[in-house]
Structures are given as C-alpha cells and as structure tokens.
C-alpha cells in the first residue's frame, strides 16, 4: 500500500478511473476495512487515488448514509456509476465484496464445523461479547450530536423502545418514527 499522498484538488485529476481501477481500488478497501470501512474508503478515494476532492467525498458520503443499505456499498455503486455507468457500479461492488465474501464464508465454515468444540465456543462467545461492545460504542458516538435536543432524543428513544420492549416490526416502527422525526426536525 502506498504512503498517503497529499490531498489534490479537482484540477490535477486525470481521466476518470477505468472499471479495472474501480475494481482494484474498492478491492483494497474491502480487504483493509476491519470493523469500519469508511476511513479506508476516504484514504483510497481522496488521498491515494485522488478520484474525488475531500469536499466531494463528504457529499458522496452524506448520500450513502442517507440512502438505505450499507454505506460503503452505496458509495461504491454511486461512485462507480459516476465514472463508468452501470459497469462501473458492478466493477466497484465486485471489487469491494469479493474478498470479504470469501473470508466470511471461510470463517463461517470453520465455525460451523467446530462450534461444539469448547475452546472454539468460548472464543466465539468472547468475540461476540466484544462485538456487542463495539456496537454500544458506536451508539455512544452517534448519539452525542443529539444531546441537548430533547425532541431528537424522544424520537430516538421511541424507535429504540418500539423494537426492544414492544418487539414491533421494523417497518411499523419506522412508519411512526420517521414522520415524527421529520415533523420535529430542527435542521442546523
């Protein structure tokens, strides 16, 4: 992997990346992003290959987070399409997912085979507990901007309680909380 190049402006960008470049670029994101691929995505797209400026990347990221689905998956689709149409989307997606799919399948097969071995079971249970901790930490980080906005906290609490305590289906929970969120929103 190259050392990070300084961020370059739009003016110095060369021709749009080919499908092959989209594949290899997103392949590098797919194999490096443990537990959170977005920082790696920024590194590859802005710093290493200069496909986008920092501001363009931030706008693309906002879109990927706004749309339903995995953020990095959406990002690959939109960026691929911007440079090379649907072929670019497919190339970026294939690059992003091929290695992780193989690795996760191997891990799954190993687990399926040895899950009743006590050492494997203990190891996976500990990793699962740690994975819960990572999600908890993610909540703490993304909830911080809501502090000081009681309406937003109420909407978040309602969405959470609908799933955890009332065991409501997600579609129903969202049908109530999304309009409520829009109604109460105070855009900055």
């Amino acid at each position, binding site marked *: 992997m190259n050392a990070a190049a300084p961020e370059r402006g739009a003016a110095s960008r060369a021709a749009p990346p080919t499908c092959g470049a989209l594949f290899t670029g997103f392949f590098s994101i797919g*194999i*490096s*992003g*443990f537990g959170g691929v977005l920082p790696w995505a920024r590194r590859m797209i802005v710093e290493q290959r200069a496909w986008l400026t920092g501001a363009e990347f931030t*706008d693309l990221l906002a*879109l990927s987070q*706004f*749309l*339903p*689905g995995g953020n990095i998956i*959406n990002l690959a689709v*939109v960026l691929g399409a*911007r440079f090379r149409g*649907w072929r670019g989307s497919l190339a970026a*997606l294939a690059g*992003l*997912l091929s290695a*992780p*799919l193989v*690795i*996760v*399948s191997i*891990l*799954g097969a190993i*687990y*399926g085979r040895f899950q009743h071995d006590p050492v494997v079971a*203990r*190891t996976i*249970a*500990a*990793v*699962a*507990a*740690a*994975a*819960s*901790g*990572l*999600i*908890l*930490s*993610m*909540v703490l980080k*993304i909830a911080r901007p*809501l502090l000081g906005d009681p309406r937003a906290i109420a*909407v*978040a609490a309602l*969405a959470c309680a*609908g*799933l955890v305590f009332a065991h409501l*289906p*997600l579609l129903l929970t*969202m049908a109530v909380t*999304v309009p409520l*969120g*829009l109604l109460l*929103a*105070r*855009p*900055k």
Partner: protein
Amino acid sequence: MIQHLLSLGSIFGELSLLAVGGGNTVLPEMQRQVVSVHHWMSGADFAALFALAQASPGPNMLVATLIGWRVAGLAGAIVATLGLIVPSSVLSYAVGDLWTRWRDRPWRRRVQAGISPVTVGLIMAAAILLSEATSRSASDVAVTLAVAVVATTTRFNPLWLLAAAAVLGAFGIV
C-alpha cells in the same frame, strides 16, 4: 428448501430498503425474523454469526451471507447476500445523480436532520438486543463493557479489541 430461499430473499430484500443509516439499523429486525419468527437459530447463534461478520474485513452486513448459509447452504448464502445488496444498490444507482442536483435544497437537510435520531434509536436497539444475546455470564458483560469504553475513548483499530477478546476466550480467561 425453496420455501426457505423465498423467505430469505423477501426478508433481506425488505431489510435492504429499510436500512436507513447503514446495516446496523436492521440488526434488531434481522434478529427478530431469524430467531423469533422463523426459528432458524438461537439468539446466541445469531450473535455468534454477527461476531464472525464483525471479525471479517469489509462491510459488516455480510452477516446476511452467514445466515443464508446456515439456513439453506450455498444457495441460501447467495440469495440472502443478493437480497441485502441488490435493492438498495439499484436505488442508489437511480438517485445518485439527483442528489448532486439537489445539493442546495433546504428539504435535503431537513430530511437528514429528521432521520438521524431514528437511526440512533435503531442502532441503540441493536446494541441492547445484541448485548442481551451475548451476555451469558458476568465475564461476557465485563468484556462488552470494557470494549465499549475502550472503543469510545481511544482510536484503537476495532480488530485489536476483537482479537484481544478472542485470546481471552480461547485461554478460558473470560
């Protein structure tokens, strides 16, 4: 078998379009469908598959692949993975250009501001339900809390925290 594949396709296809704010928001619904509605596996099994997906590189939504595999083998893995990826990707492909054109419309910020608390609530639910499933002993709870604190207050790569937990588990320390 066909019945399972149809169920997998429709569950993950729906989750794909409901996953506002990323894959973790649909974990509670995924868990509900897989564990409570279809009884394909226990809550602890679900948490274990999620942990494997977390420990793999790439998008953590690949837990769908593992669930599909467990339910219906290779065909199940393919159907669940495509179900989770294709609908949202088609949508992204369709609206990618519009977004740039709408850059300065005020409603765009209002929508973002309105949806973000919902996203926080859904991920909070995911954290609670997953922690419930993985907390089978006091030491499990300790691992969860320790990782939450370290991941929040430091910039360690999360993989190191998962690896540390794996070592502690393998040697029977937790």
